[in-house]
């Protein structure tokens, strides 16, 4: 099968290693990627959605139109992209007037939004289209004995009505945990699993307050699970959890560091990708976990 | 007549057990809707003869609405089933005779749907204003 890869901003510029992980893992599982040339920002919440409802939807609709023209669904590893695109599509499909307004704008650039393509969140997409079993069978390395804490990310959960893969109980998400289990890891429940990481508008507005949320979350993870690794389903959560720990350590609010990877990075690793290419930009020390997974620990 | 001076004349045939009650409820809850709405009380939407609707149109009413009980809720078991069949067949005849489909409407409004009554009437009045005055009776049609 073939899908459009919606890269987004954070992945492309902040964590291209994650982009590389996607470009490795999906084809390895038989999913062909299309680049959707000319795609843009989703646009993210703090920009057009906060200024102009129609403008927000128009930019989202342009991205959808690129996929529709090729008859493809889109896959993203970023929660914000997923949320913004899914929500704008939902709005346009439920408000004919809005859709007409958007299409009037798109007409001038020779495009049209029909609503025939979906935006899919990469982990849920793989869960549904490949399934844990097939993924488990394709692995070169397994995570047996590894304990991970999952962070699905708010944008794959709420509001559940706008998403195309809503089979999850959004208050007790299980997909990411199951997908980690498929790699051989143990991914136990912890009580602040659905809590927000504090990235996004909050981090831009007030970094200190944003870190307060990370701290509460990390404490719950450390105390209840004490994992080897945190696995996120969202690139924003990845950036927040990966970078915030150094600040918190500096302020002596924590005295530990838990490595953080996006699920697609972990998957690419298990499928045999070059660790440097797919995890090389992590700020937390992921190499120990990486070596352990690849059995390179003694090298 | 200038369009700006024109306010529609709308005749509503309301079933005593639901839409008529719904209209009462709309009033007692003070939901507003345009005063162009004129209700004729009938015991059941199944008692409405096609002639009533056409005669209202022929007399120059700009819109006619039939209000009955929701399917399954008819006070007389199945009067509204008869009403919908007649209405749909009549509508086919009327559109065949060149009457705008939007001039006649059938709505199920229960006695507890005061708000909906007001909303439907407001919307119908707006829709009628959009299509303009009823030409029947104004151009020597009959």
């Amino acid at each position: 099968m073939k899908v459009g890869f919606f890269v987004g901003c954070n992945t492309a510029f902040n964590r291209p290693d994650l982009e590389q992980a996607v470009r490795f893992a999906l084809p390895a599982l038989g999913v062909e990627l299309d680049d959707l040339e000319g795609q843009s920002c989703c646009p993210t919440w703090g920009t057009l959605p906060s200024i102009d409802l129609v403008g927000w939807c128009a930019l989202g609709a342009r991205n959808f139109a690129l996929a529709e023209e090729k008859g493809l669904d889109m896959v993203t590893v970023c929660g914000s992209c997923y949320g913004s695109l899914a929500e704008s599509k939902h709005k346009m499909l439920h408000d004919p007037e809005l859709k007409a307004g958007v299409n009037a704008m798109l007409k001038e650039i020779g495009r049209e939004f029909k609503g025939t393509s979906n935006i899919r969140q990469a982990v849920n997409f793989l869960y549904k289209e490949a399934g844990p079993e097939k993924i488990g069978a394709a692995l070169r390395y397994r995570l047996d004995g590894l304990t991970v804490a999952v962070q699905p990310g708010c944008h794959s959960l709420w509001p559940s009505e706008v998403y195309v893969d809503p089979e999850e109980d959004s208050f007790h998400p299980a997909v990411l945990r199951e997908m980690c289990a498929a790699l051989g890891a143990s991914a136990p429940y912890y009580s602040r699993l659905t809590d927000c990481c504090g990235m996004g508008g909050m981090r831009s507005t007030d970094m200190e307050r944003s870190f307060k949320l990370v701290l509460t979350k990390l404490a719950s993870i450390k105390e209840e699970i004490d994992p080897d690794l945190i696995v996120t389903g969202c690139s924003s959560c990845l950036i927040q959890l990966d970078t915030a720990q150094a600040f918190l350590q500096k302020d002596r609010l924590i005295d530990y560091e838990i490595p953080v990877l996006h699920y697609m990075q972990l998957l690419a690793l298990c499928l045999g990708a070059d660790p440097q290419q797919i995890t090389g930009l992590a700020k937390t020390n992921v190499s120990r976990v990486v070596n352990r997974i690849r059995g390179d620990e003694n090298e | 007549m200038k369009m700006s001076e024109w306010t529609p004349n709308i005749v509503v045939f309301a079933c005593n057990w639901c839409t008529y009650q719904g209209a009462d409820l709309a009033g007692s809850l003070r939901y507003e809707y345009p005063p162009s709405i004129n209700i004729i009380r009938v015991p059941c939407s199944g008692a409405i003869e096609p002639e009533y609707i056409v005669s209202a149109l022929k007399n120059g009413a700009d819109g006619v609405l039939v209000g009955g009980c929701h399917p399954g809720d008819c006070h007389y078991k199945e009067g509204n089933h008869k009403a919908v069949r007649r209405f749909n067949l009549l509508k086919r005849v009327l559109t065949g005779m060149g009457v705008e489909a939007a001039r006649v409407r059938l709505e199920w409004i229960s006695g507890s749907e005061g708000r909906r009554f007001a909303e439907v009437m407001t919307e119908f009045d707006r829709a009628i204003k959009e299509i303009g005055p009823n030409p029947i009776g104004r151009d020597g049609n009959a």
Partner: protein
Amino acid sequence: MPRIGVYICHCGENIAGAVNIEAVREYAGTLPGVAVAKDYLFMCSDPGQELIRQDIKDGLVDRVVVAACTPRTHEPIFRKAVEDGGLNKYLFEMANIRDQDSWAHWNEKDGATEKAKRLIASAVAKAGLLEPLQDRFVEVTKSALVIGAGVSGMFAALDLANMGYKVHLVEKEPSVGGNMAKLDKTFPTNDCSACILTPVMVQVGTHPNIELLTYAEVASVEGSIGNFKVDVVKKQTYIDWDKCTGCGDCVNACPAKAPNEFNEGMDNRKAVYIQFPQAVPKKAVLDLDHCINCGKRSIGTQPRTHSVTGEPILAPCEKACKTGACDRSVAYDPAGERVTLQVGTIIAAAGFKAMDKAPFKEYSPQSPNVITSMQLERILSATGPTEGEFKRPSDGKKPATVAFISCVGSRDKSHHSYCSKVCCMYMLKEARLIKEKYPATNVYLFYIDVRTAGKDFEEYYNYCRDLGIKVIRGRAGAVDELAGDRLRVRAYDVDMCAPVELESDLVVLATAIEPAPGLPEMGRKLGINCGGEGFLKELHTKLYPVETSVKGIYVAGCAQGPKDIPESVSQARAASSSAAVPLTLGKVVVEPFSSAVDREKCSGCGICVPLCPYSAISREEVDGKLRARIDEALCAGCGVCAAACPSLAITLHGFTEAQIQAQINALTIGAGGGKVV
């Protein structure tokens, strides 16, 4: 030429505040046929009615139009005035210029005034064509049906039975008692529910005038006030109740288990079971869905014979039964038994259901320690799964901290937008019961608003707060599971302006009161609408709170909307009084708005025959020709036949074709429609 009197009501300010009465009265005076046009502050008052009576007596008018409120409430009052004045009471018509005019167009005074003129013109046009009609009377069957044997249904049944009327009391469960039988104590007096309810259940079970039909459901209702024909299906019990003594031996012997509905699924009952120990009637029921057919003894088969002893191989239940009530060789009809009842009036008291916790995912319903209030009632009840011991479901430990969450499913547009009315009080009651028994328990109540309107309720609230129950204003937003089967409640304390968290051993969801399953369907069988909220709709919220849109059918208890026990009982007794009136009178007036065939015009085509929902139309031969005939006693006056008659041979009295046509003309041509201005 008729002489029509038009009487315009100000309704205080209600009409006069939006409608220019003077202009309307002047206009009414110019309408064809109008002899008198008057207005008065309150037409329905005695001086107002006197205006009408006097004008009739003075010979000034012979038709009356009152322009006032809605005929749904005031038509009978004015008809009486017309009759007292000496006219046939059906020579009267109302123009609804309040509910359907002034109230709805309060901010458009000119529009409201013009509309009042049109509505009066329409009423006058119809009035000119009114004909005198005679009321009909039908004999009343002196018995009643009460549907539902909860506290409302039982009181309604007892009242009617005590007046000397035969009452059929139909209950879908095996025992009477309803939801109240599940409760531990009841506010505001904290009486033990069983102590006050069981004597009533016994009375109901033994009253000579009450025929109890438990484990039964209403299948269909036909007829009208005075003479309803009701089909009731007695569901199959697979136990011969004539022989069953309720000893419970079969229950003890049965090895098959099923979730116990009476204990809200918190423990198991047997496949053969007695609903609860105080059940009335105390009879066993076999639940075939959970029966495992021990000894291959499926229902309706002969037992195999033991190869050695030659004895028949019986199932444990029938072996245990000493009276032969449990006999699996009987070929019971799974459809049960159909009984037909003839009754004069019906009271619908079908009760409610407390919502389940499953839909509220944000509150971790998968945790056994997140329970509904109804489940807590069972835990607190001496007849419940813990025999009244306060234990949490996961491990039987006594909770040290309990959190209650209010409005779960109530005031919630995704579930029920109404307030369930009783939750605030039952939460306080449950909190109080816990606190009184175990004062060391920490009890927190998370509220949106505390609503304790009711006699002695605020005192109850104050008492609870004195006990140290903590009330947090702020609806809980999440319940997280913690290690050790504990839970974390997350809320925002509005008074502290801060998010709060509470670790708790037990979380109680005050789930909404919702219509009992199947209530809308029952409403349809009875011909009563359910309101938007799904409860049976009363005729008028204030003036006719127990009547319904179907004459002779009344409503009581939570079938009409959420209410507590005092209110349910009050309404039940009000419904029984209302339902007794036709029974006492022995005959009821049937409005003469029925359809009649003019045989001179009838062509005998028979189109009308299959259209009548009451099978009131037949054809008979008149001078060698087929002509339709309408049985007036069966006709309900819907007018379907009249509207369909190809020969216009059928007249619906009260709403004749000519009358309606006159109204149409008044509203259109009369109002300037169709003219090029």
